[in-house]
């Protein structure tokens, strides 16, 4: 005769509170899921805005260049600058001869290494470099004023 299979049960005290807790957790998880989709939407909007911002800043840069070229005192500044650079270039050449002697073998780079370095520079880095150059040229202009 086959042995009768016996089922065992565990008594769970406070089943309602447990159920309430599980439902509460489920509700919170669903809320988090909703929040996740809202965040995705926010990020999408942010990306679009950043693209727009980049476009606007580029346009502003172009406008500022245009403004700079239209300014009447541009010729005066360049003439002054030429005068100044002529006198300072003589001083600089004498200084650079002195400093070049101080360079150690570690600091010196071969042209091949330079080419490799420039290849490594990403597009963003190039942009930053360009903008840095632009800033320095603007600063030069400001100093010459």
């Amino acid at each position, binding site marked *: 005769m086959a042995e009768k299979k016996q089922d065992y049960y565990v*008594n*769970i*005290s*406070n089943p309602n*509170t*447990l159920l309430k*807790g*599980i439902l*509460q*957790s489920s509700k*919170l*998880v669903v*809320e*988090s899921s909703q*929040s*996740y989709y*809202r*965040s995705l939407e*926010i*990020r999408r*909007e*942010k990306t679009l*805005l*950043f693209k*727009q*911002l980049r476009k*606007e*800043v580029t*346009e*502003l840069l172009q*406008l*500022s260049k*245009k*403004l700079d070229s*239209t*300014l*009447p*005192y541009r010729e*005066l500044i360049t003439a002054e600058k030429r005068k100044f650079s002529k006198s300072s270039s003589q001083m600089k050449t004498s200084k650079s001869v002195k400093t070049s002697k101080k360079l150690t073998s570690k600091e010196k780079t071969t042209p091949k290494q330079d080419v490799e370095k420039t290849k490594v520079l990403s597009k963003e880095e190039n942009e930053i470099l360009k903008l840095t150059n632009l800033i320095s040229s603007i600063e030069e202009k400001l100093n010459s004023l």
Partner: protein
Amino acid sequence: METPVFVKIGDYKKLLDEMDAVKTKIASIKKIIMQIESLRDKEKEELSLWSNNINLVEKEIKYIDETLFEPEK
């Protein structure tokens, strides 16, 4: 000594127009930045909501765990 500079009226008008364009552009950029900032705040709010919800879920699960496995007295 600074020398006076005279500008043709046509050029001056052009300059003013360009200045206006620059001002408009700056205003537009400022507006976009404000929008981005507001979005960033919203994102922050969502993140803090996530954090709160996770803490609450953790609390609930802990309670369920304790209730399920507490020994019968």
